[in-house]
C-alpha cells in the first residue's frame, strides 16, 4: 500500500523519471556508426569484383598511383616531423617571450583553416605568378619554381602538418622533470648533449604517434592533391577514387581503390596503435624548461628566434597573401552574386548538421563509456567504445563515401540526397574531435561524482543538465565550433556528391579555381575563411557563453 501511495505521489508531483539503461545511448551510437560502415564496406566488397583482384592489382596505373600516394605521404611526414623538431625545441626553450601565446594560436590556425583556402594562399605565394617567382625574376635569375606536382603537395602538407607536429611534440618537454635540468647544469652539459641525453629520449616516445597521425592525414589527403597535383603523374588514391567515380564512371575501380586505401590505413593504425593511444592531449602552452643550462649559451637566442621567425613566416605568408588578394579582388561583384550565398547557406547547414551529429554520437558514446568504467567497472570495454568513435581515422571519409555512393547509385538518388550524405559523413569525420575534447572532462566528472550521483538518484537528463553540462560546456562549445568549421570548409566527400544545384562554398571555390577565375576565387577564398571564423566564433559564443579567452 505504502509503495502504491508513493508511486502515485511521484507521478502526481512529476518526480518519477524514465530510467534509461546506461548502455543504451552508446549502444545506439555504436549501432549507427557500425551500420554506416557496414553498409559502405559491404558495398565496396560487392562492387570491387575481387575475383579479378590479381589482374587489376598489377595494373600499371594502379601501381603508379599507389606508389606515388605512399611516396608523397612518407616524404610529407618526414619533412613535417624533421622540421617541427627544431621549431618545437626553440619554443620549448623560449617560454616567456612576448607574443608566445599568439604564436601558438597561429600554429593552431591551419587545423581549422579550409584546405582549399590555404591552397589558394599557397598559389599566391609559390605559384607561377606568385610572389616567390616575382622575387626570383626581380633578382634576375632565369629559373622558376613550378608549384604543380610533388613540390606543391609537399609545401601544402608542410603548411598543415608542421604546425600540427610542433603542437604534438611540444608537450614532450613538459615530461622532463626540473631535476634533470638542474643536474645537467651541474654536470656542465652543452646544448648538443642536452638534446641527445635529455630531450631525445622523451621525444622518441611521442614521435611515432605524431608521425603516424601525419602519415594518415597525408595519405588520405584529397583537396591538396586534386588542385596542386597537376595531372595523372601526381595522383593519390583518394583523387583516383574521385576520378573513377565522377569522370570515368567506374564504381568497381573506385571500390577497389577504396579497399586498398582502407587496408593501408588499417595497417598503419594497427602498427602504431600503441603510440597513437598514448599521444598527449595538451595544447602545449606550459613548458618547464626555465632551468635548462643552454638558455644563455652564445648564439642560442639568435638561433631560437631565427627558427621561430622562419616558421611563423612560413605559416603566416599564405594567409596574408590570401587577405591581400581577397581585398584587392572584385569584392562587390562576388558578394552580390546569389550563387555565393546559396552555396554558403548549404555549407552552413552541412556544418551545423555535422556538428550536431558528431556531438550527439560523441556524447552518447562517452556517457556509456563512463557508465561502463564507473558503474560496471569494465575499463577495457569503456575504452573500446571510446575508440569506436575514432574509426574514421582507420576508414577515411572518402572510403565511406565511395561505398555509400556505389550503394545508392543504382537507386538513383545519390545526388538528391548528396548534401545529407555529406553532412552525415562529415559528422563521422569530426567525431574524434568531440571524443578527445569532451571525453576527459566527462570522465573526470564521473570519477569525482559517480557515487554521489547514484546515491542521490541523479541520472539521465538531470545528470546531463545539472552536473555534466556546466562542466563540459566550454570544451563542448569549442569542439562543436571546431567540428562546424572543419565541416564548413571541407572539400572532400562533397566533391563526390556535389552538383551545380547542391553546391557548397568550398566546392564553388574549387570550380572557380578550376575555371581560372582567379580574381573571383581570391574574394571567394577570403569570404570562406572569414565565414569559418564567424561560424566558429558564433557557435563557441552561443554554446559556451561569454567568458575570458582560453
Amino acid at each position, binding site marked *: 500500500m505504502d509503495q502504491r501511495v508513493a508511486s502515485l505521489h511521484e507521478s502526481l508531483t512529476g518526480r518519477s523519471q524514465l530510467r534509461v539503461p546506461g548502455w543504451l545511448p552508446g549502444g545506439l551510437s555504436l549501432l549507427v556508426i557500425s551500420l554506416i560502415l557496414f553498409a559502405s564496406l559491404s558495398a565496396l566488397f560487392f562492387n570491387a569484383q575481387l575475383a579479378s583482384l590479381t589482374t587489376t592489382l598489377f595494373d600499371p596505373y594502379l601501381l603508379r598511383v599507389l606508389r606515388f600516394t605512399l611516396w608523397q605521404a612518407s616524404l610529407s611526414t618526414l619533412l613535417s616531423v624533421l622540421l617541427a623538431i627544431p621549431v618545437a625545441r626553440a619554443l620549448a626553450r623560449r617560454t616567456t617571450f612576448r607574443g608566445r601565446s599568439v604564436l601558438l594560436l597561429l600554429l593552431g590556425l591551419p587545423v581549422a583553416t579550409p584546405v582549399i583556402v590555404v591552397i589558394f594562399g599557397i598559389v599566391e605565394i609559390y605559384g607561377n605568378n606568385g610572389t616567390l617567382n616575382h622575387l626570383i625574376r626581380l633578382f634576375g635569375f632565369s629559373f622558376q619554381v613550378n608549384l604543380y606536382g610533388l613540390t606543391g603537395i609537399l609545401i601544402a602538407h608542410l603548411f598543415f602538418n608542421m604546425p600540427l607536429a610542433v603542437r604534438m611534440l611540444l608537450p614532450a618537454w613538459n615530461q622532463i622533470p626540473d631535476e634533470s635540468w638542474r643536474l645537467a647544469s651541474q654536470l656542465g652539459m652543452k646544448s648538443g648533449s642536452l638534446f641527445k641525453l635529455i630531450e631525445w629520449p622523451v621525444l622518441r616516445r611521442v614521435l611515432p604517434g605524431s608521425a603516424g597521425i601525419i602519415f594518415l592525414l597525408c595519405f588520405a589527403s584529397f583537396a591538396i592533391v586534386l588542385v596542386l597535383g597537376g595531372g595523372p603523374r601526381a595522383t593519390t588514391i583518394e583523387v583516383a577514387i574521385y576520378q573513377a567515380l565522377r569522370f570515368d564512371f567506374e564504381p568497381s575501380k573506385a571500390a577497389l581503390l577504396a579497399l586498398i586505401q582502407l587496408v593501408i590505413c588499417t595497417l598503419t593504425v594497427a602498427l602504431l596503435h600503441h603510440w597513437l593511444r598514448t599521444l598527449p592531449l595538451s595544447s602545449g602552452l606550459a613548458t618547464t624548461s626555465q632551468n635548462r643550462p643552454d638558455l644563455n649559451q652564445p648564439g642560442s637566442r639568435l638561433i631560437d628566434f631565427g627558427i621561430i621567425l622562419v616558421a611563423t613566416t612560413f605559416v603566416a605568408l599564405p594567409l596574408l597573401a590570401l587577405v591581400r588578394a581577397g581585398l584587392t579582388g572584385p569584392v562587390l561583384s562576388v558578394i552580390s552574386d546569389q550563387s555565393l550565398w546559396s552555396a554558403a547557406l548549404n555549407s552552413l547547414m552541412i556544418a551545423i548538421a555535422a556538428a550536431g551529429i558528431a556531438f550527439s554520437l560523441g556524447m552518447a558514446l562517452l556517457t556509456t563509456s563512463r557508465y561502463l568504467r564507473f558503474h560496471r567497472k569494465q575499463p577495457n570495454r569503456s575504452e573500446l567504445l571510446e575508440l569506436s568513435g575514432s574509426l574514421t581515422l582507420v576508414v577515411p571519409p572518402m572510403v565511406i563515401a565511395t561505398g555509400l555512393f556505389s550503394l545508392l547509385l543504382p537507386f538513383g538518388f545519390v545526388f538528391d540526397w548528396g548534401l545529407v550524405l555529406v553532412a552525415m559523413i562529415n559528422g563521422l569525420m569530426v567525431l574524434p574531435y568531440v571524443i578527445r575534447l569532451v571525453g576527459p572532462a566527462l570522465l573526470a566528472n564521473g570519477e569525482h561524482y559517480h557515487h554521489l550521483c*547514484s546515491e542521490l*538518484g541523479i541520472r539521465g537528463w538531470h545528470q546531463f543538465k*545539472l*552536473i555534466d553540462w556546466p562542466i563540459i560546456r566550454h570544451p563542448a562549445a569549442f569542439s562543436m565550433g571546431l567540428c562546424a568549421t572543419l565541416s564548413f570548409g571541407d572539400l572532400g566527400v562533397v566533391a563526390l556528391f556535389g552538383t551545380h544545384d547542391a553546391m557548397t562554398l568550398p566546392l564553388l571555390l574549387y570550380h572557380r579555381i578550376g575555371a581560372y577565375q582567379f580574381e573571383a576565387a581570391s574574394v571567394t577564398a577570403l569570404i570562406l575563411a572569414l565565414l569559418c571564423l564567424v561560424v566558429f566564433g558564433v557557435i563557441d559564443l552561443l554554446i559556451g557563453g561569454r567568458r575570458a579567452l582560453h
Partner: protein
Amino acid sequence: MPFIELEALCYQREDWQLKAAFNLERGECLAVIGPSGAGKSTLLSLIAGFERLISGSIRINGRDYTTAEPADRPVTSLFQEHNLFAHLSVKKNVGLGRDPGLRLNQKDHLAIDQALEAVGLSGYHHRLPESLSGGERQRVALARCLCREHPLMLLDEPFAALDPALRSEMRGLIHQLIKSHDLTVIMVSHHPDEAAEIASSGIFLHQGELKAKGLMSDLLNNPQLPLLRAYLGVS
C-alpha cells in the same frame, strides 16, 4: 527485530574478499575500525549499493535492499571528498538531496533552510563550494544528508582532512544531530579514540573479515584479540 540486518555479506574483487555479518539497532552509532585495506570503505559501499554482493542480504527496517539501486535505499553517505558539486551553490547542493532534478516545492525550500540552520550555515545559500573552508563544505554535505530524511547515515571518514579542533567540533555536531534527527550511523574511522566519543559500539575488520564486535569501551580498553591488540598498539 533489529533495524539493520546484514546477513552473511560476501563480496569479491579479484583475489580480495570481504565477509561480514552483524545487526544494528535503531539510533545506534557504530564505528568501523581496522588497518587500511581491511575493507572498511568497501563495507560502506556495499551497504550504500555502490558495489554488488556475491551473496548475503541487506535488510533495513524489515525490507530487503540487497539488489536495490543506491538511490532507492534509505541510506545517505558522507564521503571523504567530492561531497559537493563544485559548480553548484550551497542551496542547490543541499536541494539535490530533496529532488535529483532540483524541482523544489515550498516544503523542500523549508527543509533546506532548516537543514542549513541545523549545521550552522544559515545564510550560506548562494555561496559556491570554492568559497567555503573544508569544514564548512562537509557541513553543507551534512545538511544534504539531513534533508534526505533517511534514517541510516554512512560516514566514510568525512573529517579526516580537517584539523584536530575542527574534527572535534564536527564530532560534536554529528553527536547532536544523531539525537535530534533520530539517526542510525555507521562510521569508518582511522582514529578509534575519536570514534569512541560518539560511537557506542564498534566492529574490527582485518583483511576483509569481521574479527570482533562489541562496545567501543570494551574493544578499546580491554582488547582480547591479538590482531586488535596489535592494531591498537597495546602490548
